[in-house]
């Protein structure tokens, strides 16, 4: 199972992404468990709304943080996210 670069990426309907005031960070919630996210992981997942593919997510974040060369890092994280079931592709 790997991320298909052409297809849009959607956050899993079986998980919830949420900002936690007490922890001052984003977390992923799922049955009886949670994962704390660092800022860059959260920024990536927030863009996984079913309307963007990998290249679109990369360009949006490169624009937002006025940088370039993020493809490898973002793609590696999305592979982990897919393996954990946090994101889906139809």
């Amino acid at each position: 199972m790997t991320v298909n670069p052409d297809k849009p990426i959607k956050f899993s309907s079986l998980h919830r992404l949420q900002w936690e005031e007490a922890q001052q960070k984003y977390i992923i919630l799922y049955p009886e468990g949670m994962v704390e996210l660092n800022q860059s992981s959260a920024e990536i997942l927030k863009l996984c709304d079913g309307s963007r593919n990998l290249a679109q997510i990369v360009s949006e974040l490169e624009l937002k943080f006025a940088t370039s060369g993020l493809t490898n890092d973002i793609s590696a994280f999305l592979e982990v996210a897919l393996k954990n079931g946090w994101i889906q592709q139809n």
Partner: protein
Amino acid sequence: MAGSNKISNTPPRWLLAELTYACPLQCPYCANPVDYAKYQTELSTEDWKRVLTQARKMGAVQLGFSGGEPLTRKDLPELVKHARDLGYYSNLITSGYGLTEEKIIQLKEAGLDHIQVSIQASTQELNDHIAGTTSFQHKKEVAHLVKKHGYPMVLCVVIHRENIHQMAQILEMAEELGADYLELANTQYYGWAHANRDLLLPTKEQFEQAEQIAQAYKEKVAGKMKIYYVVPDFYEDRPKACMNGWGTTFLTIAPDGVALPCHSARELPGLDCPNIKDYSIEEIWNESKAFNLFRGLEWMKEPCRSCDEKEKDFGGCRCQAYLLTGDMYNADPVCSKSPDHAVIQQAIDSAAKNALAADEKPLIFRNSKNSRLLS
């Protein structure tokens, strides 16, 4: 209140709301206290709402609605809605008994995130025997409905000597029912399970065989169904890191409002567990004697005190130390470094002997009559 306010306390993350001890099932390994029948009072809706609000403010985010059977509380949808408004991730931990499609939809609309359904075995005959109630077909229907309405589903099967031989069929059943997660919970021997241990504890060979089957299946269903395997600590040589450390993460509120550092802690002597009717969650978590008693490492005796693994397992489980050695400050006797470790082998031998005896004693089912007899 007694104890000192330690500013280094981590806040609770996990709130287990045991809404009631009432349950239509009679599972002989129930985690409720054996003397549950003497606790008749239940918190009001307003009490529960206050608890949820206060714990959430401290940082609790995972919420389990449990029991008994939480569906027996008429205000469950109202509490689920309150929890959703506060931003909790709500888990309903149910036997499925009494769960209709209408209720599943109502709870979804109220904001319930996940439903965990327990099944006792892979066959109707054994399921209904263990549950003490005709429930197998209904549970399977409930599992289908939970998936139909878009919930993530955990199927929970408690494993013991009566059903461990069905491991392969249990795995197939879970896959067929579309479970997203299968929790294979080897019985932990507290409460009713402690009273029935001679009849429930499998042999090491049975454990190993079942575990092999489960591990192989894990690979087969990778990416489709996650399998959580709760290890049987009687066959380990180090104890579990119980509750992720006392008073660090977990907060249980019992049906009558007593706050517990773990759902079995009611069995421990002299803990003076505070009630949410008398104190706020913050006072209970930070200042009560009960929540500070085994916090950190200072309370430890030898061999834990000088052990280089003490920060890994925190000396194991306080309830198990008390039940098996009579002293809740002792090392969990599961640990091979414990001077009391022999009690584990004695328990294993006793169960094996009982399994072979011609006059095997009967299971004590969890019901109010037996609860009064045992208390």
